[in-house]
């Protein structure tokens, strides 16, 4: 067994084990932390597949932002108490049977006869000066530049949607009323009063 295989099976074991621990965890915060471990193992497996940029992105974006957002919401909503009455419904045996059948079918379809090393040989490793980021950027900014822009628009829409959903209307908020500003008259803003000039009275 080569060292590459040992690393792969080690990482796969932790990926599968943390995923199982996640779905059986009673506490949502613990489940989120197990998912962090799972994402970390997945990123390591992606590095084995020479996808360094996506592996770093998985850790930075998912572990650094998305999972922190999950933990933030879990702690903010204080749902740890509500999970006390958590129970696994009677779907567990049926779910396990369905999952085992799916895994068996997938193993038959994706086995060594179809995707083994004889059918699809392992590609030669890139040289040390190969840059995964350069290759991805060349594709992303030429062939896929239009989807890239659309992804940016999608993120903007997501920001606006998320803020609009959770935004509370406050009563005493100082808000700009554009129609009032446009329709304002001079007499609303300026008041002309006639007062006696004190300098004339002194003379």
């Amino acid at each position: 067994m080569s060292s590459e295989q040992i690393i792969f099976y080690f990482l796969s074991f932790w990926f599968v084990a943390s995923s199982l621990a996640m779905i059986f965890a009673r506490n949502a915060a613990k489940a989120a932390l197990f998912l962090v471990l799972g994402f970390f193992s997945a990123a390591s497996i992606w590095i084995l597949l020479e996808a360094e940029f996506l592996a770093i992105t998985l850790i930075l974006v998912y572990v650094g932002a998305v999972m922190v957002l999950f933990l933030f919401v879990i702690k903010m909503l204080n749902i740890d108490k509500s999970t006390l009455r958590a129970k696994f419904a009677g779907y567990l045996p049926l779910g396990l049977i369905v999952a085992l059948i799916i895994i068996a079918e997938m193993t038959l379809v994706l086995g060594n006869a179809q995707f083994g090393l004889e059918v699809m040989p392992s590609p030669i490793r890139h040289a040390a000066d190969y840059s995964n980021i350069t290759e991805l950027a060349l594709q992303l900014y030429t062939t896929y530049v239009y989807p890239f822009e659309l992804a940016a628009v999608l993120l903007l829409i997501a920001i606006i949607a998320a803020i609009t959903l959770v935004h509370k209307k406050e009563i005493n908020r100082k808000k700009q009323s554009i129609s009032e500003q446009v329709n304002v008259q001079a007499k609303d803003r300026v008041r002309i009063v006639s007062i006696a000039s004190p300098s004339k009275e002194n003379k």
Partner: protein
Amino acid sequence: MISLSDYLILSSVIFCIGLVGIFINRTNIITLLMCVELILAAVNTNFIAFSHFLGNEAGQIFVFFIMTVAAAEVAIGLAILTLLFRVRGSIDVDVTNSLKG
């Protein structure tokens, strides 16, 4: 050497674990969202494995876009959850059944 089928079987196992997580979960909706993230990680592993073995970077570009969409989905999903908790006072799966036909 690790064959392509090893990666594919690994990702199918992770996919099924995420699926079972959605089946058996009776606690809260946040765990459902996390199971969806797990399924997406399995699919991304599939894409990257094929991209590596076929020598084509298009699979990695696809994973990049999937991660973008998933991040947007999580942000909106958690916003909806916060709103649901504010209105209903609970995000248990058993309680949120007002859409039941």
